[in-house]
């Protein structure tokens, strides 16, 4: 059907002015990028960031506060920027280019190399960096600042958009808090207190934080006494203790849409693009292969990295190469055996893929142990393996594709297809969690608003229209499907494990005898 782009979605004059203010802020940054030497960097940086923030705030207030509370998705599929139109592609190219320069050519942003002072965009951020931690800005400081501004400003917009929905407001406040505090300010203050500590965003958990067990990182922590030891212990406890407990109680949403920075950006600045994720069955299949491959890669890579800097002699340090490999294999075997014993039925056909994954990892680890040396694993330099992961997964997948492609693939492409942390949490959510999205009896009208707005590409409707609860490893619990449902069919909740997965053929409301006959077969 040819739907003309209606002119009626034109923005108001206030919104045009707000847009102009925001663009002015970006323009200052662009000027800095092209090496304009501002006389008072602190002032111009403040102006740039303030303009961007004020523009977003004014725009949002005019867009949402002039209307009654309710769902505000009018025209998202008409607007060029949110429907893969020309503006969408332009934005995609700009973001992607920015990420490529950021990760691989920071000198073009003005990073001073070999002790030279910063120029360009990065030098514009020097005053703020000095204020916070007394050192010059890096490309990561620039990125972190802009990232934080984006989450705060667009988080405000999102809270206005869903001002009738406290779940949305609270979790948005939460990601804003964690980004500003944990990802941005606390690491800077930690540097001020102890400049030898490696950068550590406390909420960034292995394997999303893939460098925490690198040799330089571990040495950095261990050479800093009890604080450092405490931090690295916290890192280990995060993944092995805190994460399983919280995921059991609340599902992976406690992390993915309440705490995580990647998720935080996706839920705020990325919100206008959530509907672009593919809901096709083929995309789901690709997702399952891709994300678990990344998980295997990250586990093997991390074990290999730790392996290279451990010794052979248990008198020198209790954790030797042999013991470490034995511990890892033992731990993985324990998990594998436990799942196969307790959850074999629920897994169904997937058990086969789980088994393949397990044996691949074990085979790789044994191969590594038998052929590896202190320098080499898998016959390549250990450092090269880690570097490959950093470039292909850490930079290209999560940054360039994950965020640069927001306007094309939707806002959660990284979370859905790549994040190894999401894979671990999702595995647990699917099998050992009280979380589900409950379907309200037979009330679904198959309209598709839920599936359309699922940023993770889950075909929510496919479950709801069968009266079946949604229990999917990829669900990040953002709650938008529930919000947009026009008939009150979906509710995110934590309840008992029993009856959590409830496939039905005949829906509630029909003949009770027929329901008994068909559903209890």
């Amino acid at each position, binding site marked *: 059907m040819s739907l003309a782009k209606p002119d009626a979605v034109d923005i108001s004059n206030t919104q045009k002015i707000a847009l102009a203010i925001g663009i002015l802020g970006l323009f200052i940054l662009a000027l800095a990028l092209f090496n304009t030497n501002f006389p008072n960097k602190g002032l111009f940086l403040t102006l740039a960031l303030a303009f961007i923030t004020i523009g977003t705030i004014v725009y949002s207030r005019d867009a949402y506060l002039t209307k009654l509370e309710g769902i505000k998705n009018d025209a998202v599929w008409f607007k060029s920027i949110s429907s893969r139109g020309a503006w969408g592609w332009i934005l995609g190219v700009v973001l992607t280019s920015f990420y490529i320069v950021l990760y691989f050519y920071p000198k073009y942003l003005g990073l001073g190399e070999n002790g030279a002072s910063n120029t360009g965009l990065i030098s514009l951020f020097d005053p703020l960096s000095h204020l916070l931690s007394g050192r010059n800005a890096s490309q990561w400081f620039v990125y972190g600042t802009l990232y934080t501004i984006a989450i705060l400003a667009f988080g405000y917009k999102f809270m206005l958009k869903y001002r009738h929905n406290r779940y949305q407001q609270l979790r948005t406040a939460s990601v804003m808090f964690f980004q500003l505090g944990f990802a941005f300010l606390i690491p800077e203050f930690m540097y001020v207190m102890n400049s030898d500590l490696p950068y550590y965003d406390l909420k960034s958990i292995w394997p999303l934080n893939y460098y925490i067990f690198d040799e330089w990182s571990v040495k950095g922590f261990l050479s800093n006494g009890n604080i450092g030891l405490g931090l690295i212990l916290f890192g280990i406890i995060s993944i092995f203790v805190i994460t399983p407990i919280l995921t059991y109680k609340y599902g992976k949403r406690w992390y993915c849409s309440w705490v995580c920075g990647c998720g935080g950006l996706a839920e705020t600045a990325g919100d206008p693009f959530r509907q672009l994720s593919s809901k*096709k069955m083929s995309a789901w299949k690709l997702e399952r292969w891709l994300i678990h491959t990344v998980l295997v890669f990250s586990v093997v890579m991390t074990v290999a990295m730790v392996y290279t800097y451990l010794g052979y002699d248990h008198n020198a340090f209790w954790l030797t190469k042999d013991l470490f490999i034995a511990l890892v294999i033992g731990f993985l075997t324990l998990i594998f055996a436990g799942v196969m014993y307790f959850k074999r039925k629920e897994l169904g056909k997937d058990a086969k893929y789980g088994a393949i994954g397990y044996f691949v990892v074990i085979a790789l680890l044994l191969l590594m142990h038998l052929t590896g040396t202190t320098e080499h694993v898998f016959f390549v330099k250990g450092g090269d393996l880690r570097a490959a992961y950093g470039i292909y997964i850490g930079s290209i997948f999560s940054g360039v594709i994950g965020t640069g492609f927001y306007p094309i693939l939707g806002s959660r492409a990284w979370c859905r297809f790549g994040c190894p942390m999401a894979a671990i949490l999702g595995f647990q959510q699917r099998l050992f969690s009280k979380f589900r999205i409950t379907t309200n009896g037979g009330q679904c009208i198959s*309209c598709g*608003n839920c599936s*359309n707005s699922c940023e993770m590409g889950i075909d929510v409707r496919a479950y709801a229209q069968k009266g079946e609860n949604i229990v999917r490893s990829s669900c990040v619990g953002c709650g938008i499907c529930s919000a947009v449902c026009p008939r009150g069919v979906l509710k995110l909740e934590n309840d008992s494990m029993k009856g959590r997965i409830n496939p039905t053929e005949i829906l509630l409301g029909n003949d009770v005898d027929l329901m008994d006959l068909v559903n209890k077969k």
Partner: protein
Amino acid sequence: MDHIVIIGNGISGVTAARHIRKLSDKKITIVSAETDYFFSRTALMYIYMGHMKFEHTQPYEDWFWEKNRIDLKKGYVKHIDTGAKTLQFAEGDTLSYDKLIIATGSKPNKFGWPGQDLDGVMGMYHKQDLENLEHFAPNNKACKRAVIVGGGLIGIELAEMLNSRNIPVTFLVRESSFWNGVLPEGESAMINRHIQNHHIDLRLNANLKEIIADQNGKAKSIIIQETGEEIVCDVVGLTAGVSPNIDFIKASNIETGRGVKVNRYLETNIPDVYAVGDCAEQHEGINGRRPIEAVWYTGRMMGETVAQTICGNRIQYNPGHWFNSAKFLDIEYQTYGWVFSQPRENESHFHWKHEDDTKCITVCYDKHTNQFLGINTFGIRMRHDVFDNWLTEKRSVDYVMEHLSEANFDPEFYKTYESAIFSAFKNELQTV
């Protein structure tokens, strides 16, 4: 192998096809003149509003039909020859069947208004209606005002659609208050105010007299019966209810009334011919229901039921407790059990409304036995299964009011109102 032919690819026909496939290996063909694939009719509004594209309203991907061996045929059935068990298409070809399911749904009512077939005049039911609206009302420059005739569920959806493109709307409602043939007074009045808060020009007690054409045969204004007022407009939406879409059946041997007459087994007077969904008419309403139920859910239930009968397990259509839902602009509505606009002889209503004027409930109970009979809820989501159980268990209204929080289905962290409702309920009982 039996060949099952289903006319109509809406929720009723498609549900029947899916269940027949689950239960058997029969050859299945679904015929539609409207679209190639099943889509959710209730979602048409969201396409015009830009929330979704048409393909998003299709619950199954295109490969689904071939994988499940459900043949799809696009064509307009002109005549059913029940003697030869053959369908004749307007396009000239024919299709023979062993068993036939008629699931042709509804069409918008037109009551012989002068000008009702002009350009720019449309219902809001078929995909073609949506295309029509897109043509005549792409924005508020091409369509400076729209008039909607008929205050029901489709009328208010059409008003919401036009509102999303900033097109001014005049909404003619025949009744003295919006949908008050179904909703009790307090609820209906709240929705009136909500409509007006959206800057929709709501005209109660207003009937359409005629639609006036310009020199090109396009609607240019309408006249209101009661006042004679002329309202200049570019689009007229006719949303005064729907009726079964069965004109093509009238010339066949299949018995029809307002709809295709069926017994409790959803069988017509002709063996091997069944009818389900909006177009089926029961000889008598079941358990207080209407003989024709033009509702998504009942269409689905009839589809589930007829599949059993066709696959050898002949059973009656025997729906459980009534339920329904809708959304009035920003206010969601759910109902479980029976709440009529006026309490019947033995019934009493308890009504509670929140001061923000967007949430209310009405509970209906038997004033002699205190048995809970039904609830309407606006702006508060409630659990279907909980109310279904309470209705089956014939709980008292006191029990229901006391345990209302168990039925709450609002998202987490929402404010709850059950204790306010319960104390209002107790107060009201004491003053009576």
